[in-house]
């Protein structure tokens, strides 16, 4: 089912095949730190070589020192051993520090890059995507990529060196025995490689089922009143039971595989060791092999499995990193639709004259919302936009704020075509108050100052007073320093509106854009808001999507937006006399408002 509200329609891929382009691009993030990366490489080689040398040392202790009964030699070899180990320790420590640092840097850079790019993107990008999806690009996808590029690459390199090193060493020690062990290896690799997708898919299923369980639990808790009102407990429990069965089944399926798989691998490994022991012992009995060598061999064999499983793990890491890279680079490669033109110039200080010339626009191609809209408004005019839902009022405001560019026609402010002035210079002279004012986590002061970051305290308080917000702010526990929660949780809707007004006022805009809230606000604040609005609109050009009768009636110009254009325009009195669309709208609204207890006012 297609849904305009989900542009990335296909279900998210968990893994994707290796893509050289993505890989090189991910590696390029390591480039700024190449010196450190080289350092990591060198240290890594040292550590691996040190670890590889150990069984050889042990072999020499047994074959040389012990056989020759030389305690001096034992002491010597032990000293070498300890020195080697200390070296490995120091190198490993430094290597961990460095690779952790580079890994975190890559993570930081990728994240910062992505975030900054997203800031440049226009509304059409955000309109089609749920917030959660965008967020997971910046959090988990970037994480998967940096983990792979850092740890993944390091691991592959280390393990490859180990594999090659061990192969070389055992071939040197006794090539016939070595060949016997190595023959098993390719079989192993194939086995591991084939098994991995099963595990991967299995765990992905488990995660799916798990989120179903959580979703059900969430609904059962948040919807408890409905559940009890309809006595749905039994049915719900049965439904939950089924969901749980699903999860259990998925989990057991994967676990059975895992729990079977690893012991089999170990058994095959042990088989290999046994072969070596058997043949090796025979060789020894024939005088062609020493005990020490045999022991070293067994030790090396035991070390062969680790690289294999590590590499297969990195392989799955790579698959998810590729899928993530696909999404992340997809974002990074999206060009912003609305941006500064090449020769964009700064918008001079506004006086506030607005003109739409033959403006046509559609969100979805082929479904125009506005068609050849024309109007001109003088500075200082208050314009009220009214009309049925979806008619295009919000679109006019979006175009005016240059959140979107028109498909055809021009939007001019003070005679300047908006598409050729810089966005920053224009928007900083706008004041915009949206329907659901966004209050972010911080303090009241910070929220108001969003309109003008370097505003002084006096300016902030003055703005708050002008919009009747000062009183309720002072009644809060810490006044202007009161901490606001995410989305302004503890404040009432009316209070949030007032804060948004203060914020807009602080910017001293010459052009004000306002989308009035439709929902009933608590009656105490309603009156304050009406006053604040009047004050806000003084002396500036305002475009208001109006719902309040008082707002509409006070406007200098009312435009009825319907059918893709401006159906009627004029003052309130003119339009009432007309007995046209406006008249119908107004009377219906009037009746509804009259009926609405909350609008009328409490005792």
């Amino acid at each position, binding site marked *: 089912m297609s849904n305009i509200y989900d542009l990335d329609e296909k279900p998210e891929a968990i893994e994707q095949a290796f893509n050289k382009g993505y890989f090189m691009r991910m590696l390029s993030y390591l480039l700024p730190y190449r010196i450190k990366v080289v350092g990591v490489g060198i240290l890594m080689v040292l550590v691996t070589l040190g670890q590889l040398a150990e069984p050889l040392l042990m072999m020499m202790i047994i074959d040389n020192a012990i056989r020759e009964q030389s305690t001096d030699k034992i002491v010597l070899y032990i000293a070498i051993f300890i020195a080697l180990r200390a070296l490995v320790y120091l190198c490993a420590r430094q290597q961990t520090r460095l690779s952790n640092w580079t890994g975190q840097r890559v993570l930081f850079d990728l994240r910062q890059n992505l975030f900054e790019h997203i800031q440049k993107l226009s509304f059409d990008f955000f309109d089609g995507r749920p917030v959660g999806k965008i967020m997971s690009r910046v959090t988990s996808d970037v994480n998967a990529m940096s983990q792979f590029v850092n740890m993944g690459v390091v691991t592959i390199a280390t393990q490859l060196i180990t594999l090659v090193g061990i192969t070389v060493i055992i071939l040197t020690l006794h090539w016939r025995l070595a060949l016997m062990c190595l023959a098993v290896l390719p079989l192993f690799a194939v086995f591991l490689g084939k098994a991995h997708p099963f595990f991967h898919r299995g765990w992905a299923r488990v995660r799916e089922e798990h989120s179903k*369980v959580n979703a059900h639990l969430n609904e059962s808790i948040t919807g408890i009143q409905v559940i009890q009102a*309809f006595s749905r407990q039994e049915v719900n429990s049965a439904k939950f039971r089924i969901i749980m069965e699903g999860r259990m089944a998925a989990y057991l399926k994967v676990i059975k595989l895992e729990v079977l798989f690893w012991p089999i691998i170990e058994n095959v490994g042990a088989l290999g060791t046994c072969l070596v022991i058997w043949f090796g012992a025979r060789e020894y009995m024939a005088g062609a092999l020493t005990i020490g060598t045999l022991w070293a061999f067994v030790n090396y064999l035991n070390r062969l499995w680790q690289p294999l499983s590590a590499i297969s793990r990195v392989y799955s890491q790579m698959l998810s990193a590729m899928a993530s890279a696909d999404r992340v680079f997809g974002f990074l490669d999206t060009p912003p639709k609305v941006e500064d033109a090449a020769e964009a110039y700064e918008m001079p200080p506004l006086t506030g004259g607005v003109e739409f010339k033959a403006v046509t626009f559609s969100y979805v191609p082929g479904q125009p919302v506005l068609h050849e809209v024309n109007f001109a408004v003088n500075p200082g005019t208050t314009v009220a936009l009214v009309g049925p839902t979806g008619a295009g009022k919000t679109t006019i405001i979006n175009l005016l704020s240059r959140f979107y560019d028109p498909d055809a026609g021009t939007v001019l402010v003070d005679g300047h075509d908006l598409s050729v002035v810089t966005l920053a210079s224009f928007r900083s002279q706008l004041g915009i108050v949206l329907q659901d004012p966004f209050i972010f986590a911080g303090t009241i002061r910070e929220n108001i100052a969003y309109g003008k970051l370097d505003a002084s305290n006096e300016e902030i308080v003055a703005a708050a007073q002008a919009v009747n917000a000062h009183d309720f702010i002072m009644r809060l526990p810490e006044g202007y320093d009161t901490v606001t929660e995410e989305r302004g949780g503890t404040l009432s809707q009316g209070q949030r509106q007032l804060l948004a007004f203060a914020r807009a006022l602080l910017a001293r805009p010459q052009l004000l854009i306002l989308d009035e809230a439709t929902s009933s606000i608590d009656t105490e604040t309603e009156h304050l808001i009406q006053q604040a609005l009047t004050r806000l609109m003084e002396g500036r050009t305002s475009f208001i999507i109006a719902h309040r009768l008082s707002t509409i009636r006070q406007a200098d110009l009312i435009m009825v937006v319907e059918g893709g254009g401006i159906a009627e325009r004029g003052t309130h009195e003119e339009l009432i006399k007309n007995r046209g669309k406006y008249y119908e709208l107004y009377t219906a609204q009037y009746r509804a408002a009259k009926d609405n207890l909350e609008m009328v006012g409490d005792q």
Partner: protein
Amino acid sequence: MNHLLRLMRYARPYARMVALAFVCMLSVLVLGLLPPLILRSIVDRAIPEQSLNLLTWLVAAYIATNMGLGLANYGQWYSFEVVGQNIARDIQQDMHDHLQRLHLEYFRRQKTGDLMSRVSEDIHSIQEFLGWGFILLFSNFLSITITAGVMLWLDWRLAVATFLAFPIMAVVVLRFDKKIRPIWHRVREELGKLTTVLQENISGVRTVKAFARESFEIGKFRTRNTEFFETNIERGLIEANTQPFIEFLSSLSIVSLLGFGGYMVVNGSVSVGTLIAFQGFVWNMIWPIRMLGMLLNLLEQAMAAAPRLLEVLDAVPEIADAEGSRAAGSLAGAIRFNNVSFAFSDGESEVLTDIDFSVAPGQILAIVGGTGSGKSTLVGLIPRFFDPCNGGVLIDETDIRDWTLSSLRRQIGMVLQDTVLFSASVRDNIAYGMPEATQEEIETVARLAQAHDFIASLPRGYDTPIGERGVGLSGGQKQRVALARALLMDPRILILDEATSSVDTHTEVLIQEGLKEIMEGRTSVVIAKRLSTIEQADLVMVLEQGRIAEFGTPQQLLGSEGFFSRLHRSQEFDAGEEVAQLV
């Protein structure tokens, strides 16, 4: 610890699997001792004696031991996983079922987020511990002891020399764990802060762009990003300082083994085979020690989680079917409140005081009052979401506590301000109370609720999924679906909380007209927000701070000098002929 033990009773149904797992575990431990010993025999006996026969037998024994180990391992892991999963599932099901029956007030006190974390994350901690943490802890401990025992028995001097480094290692491991956990906590916190900034930025993108604050936001993000980076570097440093060191310490035991062992072999007190066997044993001991920190962490988390789970399971549902309650027959719908008082148990002042009134079957009662007057609470007493502290609520002259909850509630339909719909198709949502309803029945109520038209226009009609993963409905549409849902039960009593917000005028008119038809033949209690509703009601109640300020027919109230008549007069908020012209 007691809490954790209490939860162990969930293991009882799986006692046989648990026993099997333990048997397997012991087999693994015992069998695990054999390979080093076999190697020892090969080196000390088969090879010097040049006995191919003995060698072959020993190697065969090695293979057999390994297969046995594999089998026992499989048995051990699988059974403990199964037990762990089953226990977690049982606890989760119990918690779910129990929660559904708890009184509504419980959910007022608890935050959803907290409940969710109890029901998912805390259970996960328990499952991890009971599934494999517990067994690993146990078997590691046994492994260390048994292996040490065998080593001491083989040659106590060599054994002691090998053990030298272990205590230090254990200490380092434990200290590392103590140091690293607060850092991980901080890393999670920093990630949380980063996510918050990110989420605010994306949800508030309109505001950001409106004020052209992109560079400011970038700076904000950079700060958080940097903090996250620095905390992770700190964590990396701790890990870099400790992990390689632990590796170094474990190799020290190999060093002592080789050093002392080599010396002892030279002076003949120990055989080479024993030396080789000891190397194998040392691995049996090092791994458990290194896992110690992680396992203790699991135990701690489980101990923290257990009381949180038990709190929910132990909560007593305060609203439940009383002893000897019987099913309510078909109700007529006469409602009477007999001197009802109510207060929430978190010690606030009384929400309702001396509420006393009655409504005859089929009448419409409109309740009016400001915020905090107690309207929602009063209305919630009828389906027994709350029980009165004093007095009683009677329907058809019977105290509703005498009836079973489900028989009572199935005859009451509620549509509240905060519409809750579930992630399912429109049909399933409407048929929520009666999953067996036919399509016809569903469409009938949908039409009554003025919802049929917009539902039919959805991409898949009644089968369209709504909710989290489906199409988003507007506030007004949700309300109408909820209304249809309530009507499907054909309730005798209808409780409505009128919404004025988020519905456009056109729909409002439709709903208003539909309501008349809907309320026919039912007793309706409406929290009224429209004057027209009040004017059409049979009875009007004005609530002021939990008390009935006025009660009577609309005409009666208009006559008196109360809130209602004042309200009616203040209708004329616009002076002038214009009003007269329009109305």
